[in-house]
C-alpha cells in the first residue's frame, strides 16, 4: 500500500475515505476492557453508525483492539494475531495498562508499554475508558487514516528487527512463526 504523498492523490483520498468509514474490529478481549466493547457496539452508543463493526477472524479485520493489560503469555498470541491480519491494519491501545502498565505497573507478568512490541496508532486512556472515550479514539483513528498518518503497519514492517528483539526479550524461547502480510 502506498502512503506516498506525491502520487495518486485522488485515488488515495478515496481509498482512505473508504477505509476510514469501514473499520472492522477484531474481537480479541485481552483484559477487563473487553467489557466496555458491548455497550460501545449496542444501542446506547452504536459504533456501527461510524462504520465500526466486529470481525470474527484476523484475516477479515482492520483494527486490533488491545483491551487492557497484556500478560507476557497473551502478548505472544496478540503478536501472532496481528501478524495474521492483512494490510492495512491498525492497533488501538485501550486503557492505562497498555500505556504505562496502569495498576499493574509492578506486576511480574504483564507488559507495561505496548508500543515497544506492537506499533500502536491510537491510545485511549482511562481505567477503564468509557464508551464515549472509545468512540473518541475511533474518531481519532479515522482522522489519522484520512490524513494517511495511521501507518503503524508500515513502521512495523520497517523496524521489524527492533520489534522482534523487544518481543524476544519477553519470551526468548518462543519460536516466532513466519511473518505474513
Amino acid at each position, binding site marked *: 500500500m502506498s502512503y506516498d504523498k506525491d502520487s495518486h492523490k485522488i485515488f488515495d483520498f478515496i481509498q482512505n475515505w473508504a477505509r476510514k468509514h469501514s473499520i472492522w474490529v477484531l474481537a*480479541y478481549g485481552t483484559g477487563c476492557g473487553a467489557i466496555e466493547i458491548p455497550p460501545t457496539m449496542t444501542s446506547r452508543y452504536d459504533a456501527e453508525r461510524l462504520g465500526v463493526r466486529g470481525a470474527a*477472524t*484476523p484475516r477479515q479485520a482492520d483494527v486490533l483492539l488491545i483491551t487492557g493489560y497484556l500478560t507476557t503469555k497473551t502478548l505472544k*498470541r496478540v*503478536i501472532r*494475531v496481528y501478524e*495474521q491480519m492483512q494490510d492495512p491494519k491498525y492497533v488501538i491501545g485501550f486503557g492505562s495498562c497498555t500505556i504505562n502498565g496502569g495498576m499493574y505497573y509492578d506486576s511480574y507478568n504483564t507488559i507495561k508499554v505496548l508500543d515497544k512490541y506492537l506499533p500502536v496508532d491510537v491510545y485511549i486512556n482511562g481505567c477503564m475508558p468509557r464508551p464515549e472515550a472509545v468512540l473518541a479514539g475511533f474518531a481519532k483513528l479515522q482522522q489519522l487514516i484520512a490524513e494517511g498518518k495511521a501507518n503503524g503497519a508500515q513502521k512495523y514492517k520497517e523496524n521489524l528487527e527492533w520489534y522482534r528483539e523487544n518481543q524476544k526479550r519477553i519470551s526468548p524461547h518462543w519460536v516466532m*512463526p513466519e511473518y*505474513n*502480510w
Partner: protein
Amino acid sequence: MNTIILIFIIFLAGAILTFLASNIKGLLKEVLFLASVIVPVVMFFTGVKAGDSFNFHLAGFAFQWEITPLGYLFALIVTGLGVMAAIYAVSAMQKTKNLGLFYFNFILSIMSMLGILFSRDLVSFFIFWEIMTWSSYLMVVYQGKDVQKVGIKYFIFSAIGAYAMLMAIVMVYSLTGSMMIDKMIQSYAGFAFNMQIIIPILFLIGFGVKSAMMPLHVWAPGAYSHSPMAFTSLFSGALSKMGIYGMVIVMAGMIAYFPEGHWFRIVIAWLGGITAVGGTLWAIAQDDAKKLLAYSSVAQLGYIIVGVGIGTPLAMLAALFMAVMHALFKGTLFMAVGAIEKQTGTSNFTEVTGLIRKMPLTFLASLMGIIALAGIPPLGGFVGKWMLYESLIGSDHYLLVIVIFFSSTAAFLYCYKFLFGFFLGQEEKEWEHVKEAPVLMVIPMIILAGGTFLLGTFPGLVIKPISAGLEQLGYAATQGKYWEMSMLFNEWGDQVVLEPILYAIIAVFAFFLVFLLIKNHKNTRYVSTKDISTSGEVPKEHENLTFIQNFFQPFLRAVEPLMKRQIDFYYNGFGKGIEALFDFTRRIYTGNGQTYALYAIIFVVIFLLLKTTLFGI
C-alpha cells in the same frame, strides 16, 4: 473362424495362460494379462457390429450368441471400463500374493459379462451369469481379514438370485419349449396370468440381487469394500449393470405386455426410490471411503432402477444414460480410493487428510467424479438426472420426484465428505512423504473423469447407441431423435450439446479466477495449513486440528428415525427364525424308534377321527 467365438477363446486362453504364468518372474504375466484383456476388446470393436450372431448346438440345446444394440451399449461400458480397470490393476496390484488368481478372475469376469450380453438363449445366459458370480465371489474373498463373512453374505444372496432365475428359466422352458430369449418375450403375452406374474418376479429377484435393489442390497457394501479396488471399479461400474441389463429386458420385454403392468412398474420404481434414499443416508454415516462409495453405488443404482421401473421412453433413456455415467464416475472414484489406499495404507477419512497437494491428479479425477456424481452441471451426471426428473414429472410420479430429489441433495453431504476427508483439511506431518500414485494408475482415472466431462458436454455421443438399444426394445414410436423427448435438448436446438451453458460457465469462471490471481499474483504466497486463525495460538506439528469425527452428526441426528433399523436386522432375525425352525424339527425327529411309533399311532388316531369330515369316507 467367427470373431465372436474367437473373442471368447482368447479370453479363456488368456486367463489360463496368465494363471499359469503367474509364478514366472518378470513382466510376462502382466503383459499376458493386458494382452488377454485388450486384444479381445480391440477385436470386439473392430470385428463385431450390433446384430452379428453365432449359432451352434451343444448337448441338445440350441445356442445363439448375438450382440443386440442394447447389449452393444452395455458392452461399451464393460469393455471400456474393463480395459481401464485392467491397466489400473497392473499397477495397483503389484507385489500382492496370488496374483495369478486375481488376473484369472478378472479376465473371467469380463468374459462372462460380455457373454451375458451376447447370449440370446437362457442356457448360456445362466452359465455366464454363474461364471460372473463365481469369479466376483472369489474376488470378494481375495484379500483382507474377515472376508469370509462378507463373502458368505454375497454368496447366499447371489445363490438366491440364481435359483430364482433358474426356476424362472425352467418355467419358461416348460411353457414354450424353447430357451430363446426372443421366443420367451414373444410368447409372454400368451402365458397364463399367474405365470405372467411369477416369471418376471423371479427374474427380477435374480437381477435385483446383482443391481443391489433395496431389500436385496445387504451384500453390496461389504462386497464392494472388501474386494480389491482395481476390481471394485469394475464390480460397481459394470458388473452391477448386468442386473440393470436384465431388468431392462424384463421390464421392457415382459411387463410392457402384462395387463396389470402399471402396478408392477410403480412397485419397482418405489423400490428404486427407497434404495436411493437408504443408500444415501447410510453413505453419509460412513467413515470409510470404500464403504461410503459402496453405499453411494447402491443409491445410484436406485436412480437407475427408478428410471427402468417407470419405463417411459424418456425414463428409460435417462436410466441407460445414468448407467453409462455411473460406470464412468464410480470407476473413477473407486480407482482414486485404491490409489490413496496404495499410497497411504488406509482408506479411512479419520486417518488420512490433506492430500491435495501431494496427489493433485488424483484429486482432480475425484473432483470431476464427485461433481458428476452430485449431478452438478456441466458434467454428465446432471444430464441423466434432468431427464429422470422430467420423465418422473411427465409420468405423474410426483412424490417420487421429491424422494429422488431428497436423495440427490443429501448426496452432496457425502460428496463433500469424500473430498474433504481425503484431500482437504489440515496437512499432517504423518502424510508428508505421500507421493502421487503411479502413472498407470492415474491415467485410467483421468481418462474416465474426462469421459464424464465429454458426455456432459456432448451427451449425443452416447445417446445414439442408447436410442438404438431402445428401438430394439420396442420404443420405436418416436423415430429418430430421442433427445427431442427431453426439454434439455429441445431448448438448445438440434445440436445435442450444452455448449451455451458451458461457455458461460467457463467465461465467468475464467474471469473471476483471473481477477483473483492477476491482481495479487506477485505478492501472494502459499502458507501452510497450520497458519490459520486459531485465536493466536500456533498449532504444534503433532496437533491434529482436522475436523472429521462425527462429520455430519447434526444431520444424522435429524434423520435418526429413518436410520434406526438396518435391513440386516430383519435378515438376521429371519436367519435366527430359520435356525429355530430347524431346531424344532430336530426335536420332532428324535431318532428314537418309540417316538416314531408314537407319532404313527397319533397320526392314525387323528386320521380315524377326522376321516369323515375330511374325506367323507
